[in-house]
């Protein structure tokens, strides 16, 4: 990725032109899961279904591994990748917990206590600088 004024925002991939180009086929695969027949075909043989799309091998592996952060790095957009979660029967909050590396119970508790604080989360420079 090039140097953009938002690349210092920690734990965040902005879905900009670069990411959208990189992730087009990954996201269009996700979009196909809006149809019940496609969800069934994907569940029956994930690898074979993914091979219908001209995605990179890394993108396919990230889907197979349900590497939610990896998918975002490789051009996935959360509104699209969440369709994989829906296919798996997972809620938005469940994958949010996975992406932030905590259990669902810990994540839900954090939200009940007011959510993740902005303090220390504005910029990687802030994090590094203390």
């Amino acid at each position, binding site marked *: 990725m090039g140097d953009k*004024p*938002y690349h210092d*925002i*920690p*734990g*965040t*991939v*902005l*879905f*900009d*032109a670069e990411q*959208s180009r990189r992730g*087009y086929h990954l*996201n*269009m695969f*996700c*979009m196909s*899961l*809006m149809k019940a027949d496609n*969800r069934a075909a994907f569940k029956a043989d994930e690898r074979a279904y993914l091979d219908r799309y001209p995605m990179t091998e890394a993108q396919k592996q990230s889907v197979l591994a349900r590497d939610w*952060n990896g998918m*975002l790095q490789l051009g996935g*957009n*959360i*509104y*699209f990748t*969440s*369709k994989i979660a*829906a*296919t798996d029967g997972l*809620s*938005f*909050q469940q994958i*949010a*917990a996975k*992406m*932030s*590396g905590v259990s669902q119970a810990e*994540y839900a508790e*954090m*939200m*009940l206590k*007011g*959510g*993740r*604080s*902005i303090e220390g*989360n*504005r*910029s990687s420079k802030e994090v590094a600088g203390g």
Partner: protein
Amino acid sequence: MARITAGIATSHVPAIGAALDNGRAGDDYWRPVFAGYEASKRWIAGKRPDVAIVVFNDHASAFSLELIPTFAIGCAEAFAPADEGWGPRPVPVVKGHAELAWHMAEHLILDEFDMTIVNKMDVDHGLTVPLSLLFGQPQEWPCRVIPLAVNVVQYPPPTGHRCYMLGKAIRRAVESFAEDLDVVIFGTGGMSHQLQGPRAGLINRAFDTDFLDRLVADPVSLARAPHLDYVREAGSEAIELVMWLVMRGALDDRVRETHRFYHVPASNTAVGHLVLENAG
């Protein structure tokens, strides 16, 4: 003539719709959320608007990456609730106001807002959850609805200032429509939230409070806030808040704050809500 008389801002969290649809609105977790809308429900039931213009965003339901309109206006007679992967929400079909919507499209384009005209569009939680919050669970929605979709998924969305100016153009368009109609406008989405990555769950109450205050009293300066202020301070999905500026632009410079509600959390999100009435 038709007139825009009030504005409604509200978050459109999908889990709110699911809670209502699955009979969980009375749960301890959800009760405070719905309680925060009770006064507004009574207000709008008494007001009985003819038309609601709902400024919302599609979440990869009607629009994929094949086509990404920055501003799109729904000109169809009706809009079906979208299947977002779990089957469509069990809510009424949204009936449009095609005559006013087409009038607005023409007027806005000649006013130099190059709208995309949409004749077929399923509407997802971005549009139906605000209707549920204000109108409850009726057999039919009590007014006509004009969906106005704004891209906030692909960066960059339109600027806050552009959204605010669109609101002003919408007002001019509505006021040039001959029929006597009481029109309200919804700005939806937000408030602070981030759904993606290791920073998911970000909430910034101070940012949200300031946004609510300035949307009411100082929208001109608020409209100049750059995108990265929203993203950095309030989360990648908080950028949806630019849609509230469309609503605000369509109202008088001075407004009366009839209702305000703020609550954390609804799933991953801070819920914010305002009812604003024109005050000259």
